[in-house]
């Protein structure tokens, strides 16, 4: 089935099974590899991306539900020729990634989170972001989210 999507600001059309998870559509049909497969059951968050500004775990999100909607993947988080998105800048400042595989999912979750919680406490972060990282970058992720929230405020001023 032909499905129209808007991915990272560009209109695209894919011809796929409407039940195909959005994860495989962005990765294998659109060659955007930043969104990762981790568990296929919406448990780990490695595949997190935005659909109309909301975070979804794309491994369990049929592409037909995204028809006509705006999808943002990590590749589209920062605007070209603009300063980096506060989350990506904070991830660099705090030197967060180790293996790096789960980080796109964390960054996508964090990007929406700091809009809802512009001045988050540690407890806000700990109770709202449930993605999994195996390298043990959790302490730095918490620092980076707080830094990102701060950068976001500075950018808005």
């Amino acid at each position, binding site marked *: 089935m032909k499905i129209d999507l808007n991915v990272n600001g560009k209109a695209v059309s894919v011809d796929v099974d409407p039940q195909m998870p959005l994860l495989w559509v962005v990765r294998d049909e659109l060659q955007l590899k930043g969104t990762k497969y981790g568990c296929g*059951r919406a448990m780990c968050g490695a595949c997190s991306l935005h659909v109309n500004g909301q975070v979804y775990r794309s491994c369990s999100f049929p592409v037909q539900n995204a028809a006509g909607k705006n999808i943002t993947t990590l590749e589209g988080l920062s605007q070209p020729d603009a300063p980096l998105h506060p989350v990506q800048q904070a991830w660099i400042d705090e030197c967060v990634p180790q293996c790096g595989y789960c980080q796109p999912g964390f960054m996508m979750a964090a990007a929406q989170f700091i809009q809802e919680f512009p001045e988050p406490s540690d407890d806000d972060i700990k109770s709202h972001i449930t993605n999994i990282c195996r390298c043990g970058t959790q302490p730095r992720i918490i620092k980076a989210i707080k830094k990102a929230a701060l950068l976001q405020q500075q950018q808005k001023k």
Partner: protein
Amino acid sequence: MTKDKTTKKAFSRRKFLTRGAVVLGSTVVATYFGMPFIRRYLAQTVENMDIGSMITSYDPDFWFEILDDNTILIRSPKVEMGQGIFTGFAMLAAEELEVPLSQIKVTHANTANGPVDSLSTGGSNSTSSLYEPIREVAASLREMLKAAAAQRWQVNVASIKVKDGVLSAGGKSITYAELAKTTKEWTKPKKPTLKPRSEFKYVGKDVPRIDLVDKVMGKPLYAIDHHYPDMLYAVLVQSPYIGGTLKKVNTKAAAATPGVVKILEEKTFTAIVAKTRYAAEMGLAALEAEWEVPKKWQKADFEATVTVGKGKAVNIQNVGNANSEIKTAGNKVFKQAYRTPLGAHAQMEPNGTVASYKDDKTEIVIGTQMPGMVRDRVAKAIGQKSKEVALEPAFAGGGFGRRMDVNNANEAALISKAVGKPVHVFNTREQEFQNSHYRPNTHHVLQAVINEKGDVTAITHDQATPDMVLESVAGDVGLAIFGADFLSAGHGASILYNVENRSTTLWQMKLPLKIGIWRSVGMFPNTFAVESFINELAHETKKDPLKMRLALLDGPEEINQRYQKVLKTLMKKSAWDAPKQPGIGRGVAIGNDRKSIAAAVIDVAIVDDAIVVKKVTHVIDAGVCINPNGIRMQVEGSIMMGISATLYEELSVEDGQLANNFLAYRLVTLADAPEIDITIVEGADIPYGVGEPPLAPIAPAIAAAVFDLTGKRLRSLPLQLDAAES
């Protein structure tokens, strides 16, 4: 995948700077000393040995490439799986190359064009084994460039100056790139003199990871991201049962699934090949498979199998007469038993391979800890020579020992050969949990004699667990000689403390699944048991557990001085002697993992009937510190993995099946991150490993803190408050 093929090779092949390799196995010969002596001797020797690398070429041409923009590309023989080795190598090379760090790039050595370490990446030895070699190769390259410039300008080589990738003398100057491009004859240098530590510009300073920006921007670095234009996707049919084999298969519905191209039924495997990953997964779901399951294993079977007193016993430490002391001491013997469960690596990128079979040159892209060995196995499987297989190691989405395996590389190459197209073959998460190799469950019995004065005079440790790795490293011959796997299963099992009589015995048996290495190898279970027992002994003898360790680890050797420094630093940093805080329990532990010493004081609280780690004060002495930021990352990672394995992780065994997802195999989340205070001590003049050693003290320190707070001794992992014994 990143491709750096902008410049063709600038140097001719030349062999120098050869180094001896460490070879274990059939070269070891038993002598008239008898097997028990030999085994103990080997156990102690190997435990203390600096395990080298098995890199066959130290030719700068193999290691380095000078690119047109005057950056230098390093082809790393070690793979990057998150531990930060690329950054460490770049720093070390920059010291001798006389270029800023920003002018260095690092990529994996492809087996077709770079230095391959057939010993693999692991054991936390990448930095220690290559600390000198990589600087020697870099210095050789610099000297070759200087000699070429001297020849070109007809000046004395001593007058050539190098700075930031530019050579100059008497008003003339040329970049490395210009010189490399236009020089045909190169002079082989003598072994170059290396800079002393006092002149290092980068080593010892905080440096961000060299792969940081690529990872934050989501670049396609991993094997699962690799793409060929006409690539197909396959999934293997793998058993959901322990020891299960395919009895009967009905492929009709799978073959009829839209997008499925072919069901490949080979002698050794069955695969579903499709146009998309989604179609391959749907085909797998539609496949009707009947499994032959020889036995429906339960957790109780695993625990009964892995029990001290069963299997083959090998003594690996015998100081004094510990066993006879225990036998004759009667009721003065203090005895406890500990257990650790089956564990999974659960790294975030499932294993898999992208293979493109060609008659003359097969390409393999895989996240692996042993590129050389995987290439050789793939070559054998598809009937090619090793040199006809080009294996490109990808950034691994987590390693932790899970990638010390061929995984499905052979099948991927065979599928590509069968279908005539490149193929992408990755495990589903369920397959990754159920068709892996595992950290085996362990059982430990520790006994001690306490004399009238309250001093410990003898300790014995009997440990039961299967072979983790020795059979695959040393082969049948090695295993027969060594008797038991002291390299990994026995790693950390010996008693460090200066107690008069000490003995450690490994009991080795088999479990019905593949056993392998898990971050820190034997240190994790062994340190949990031994250090927990030491904490119990301190309590029994009414001693402060940290001060008792200071007393029992004192001595004349360099290692004793290092223990003292680490423990005293920890005492101060953790404010160990400060009054107890209400609602907080504290525990301490220490480990020595191949000469890296790590100790921690951990504070816990009980919140809603659950153990919560509030603070970890950690001190590590891994010798020379290359990148403090890199060490802190590894310590933080080890702390989180340690908390995870101590509080939550247990791979369940039920009705013949293992847990198969993250709900059933719980890991830490952000909610578990404690306050962390890390201190780095440099107690030796060479670097030791940091990827695994910081993990050793975590589990026993948490268990001790729980006892401090609640009075409950928890002797099985994961720690569960309702399972308290005595």
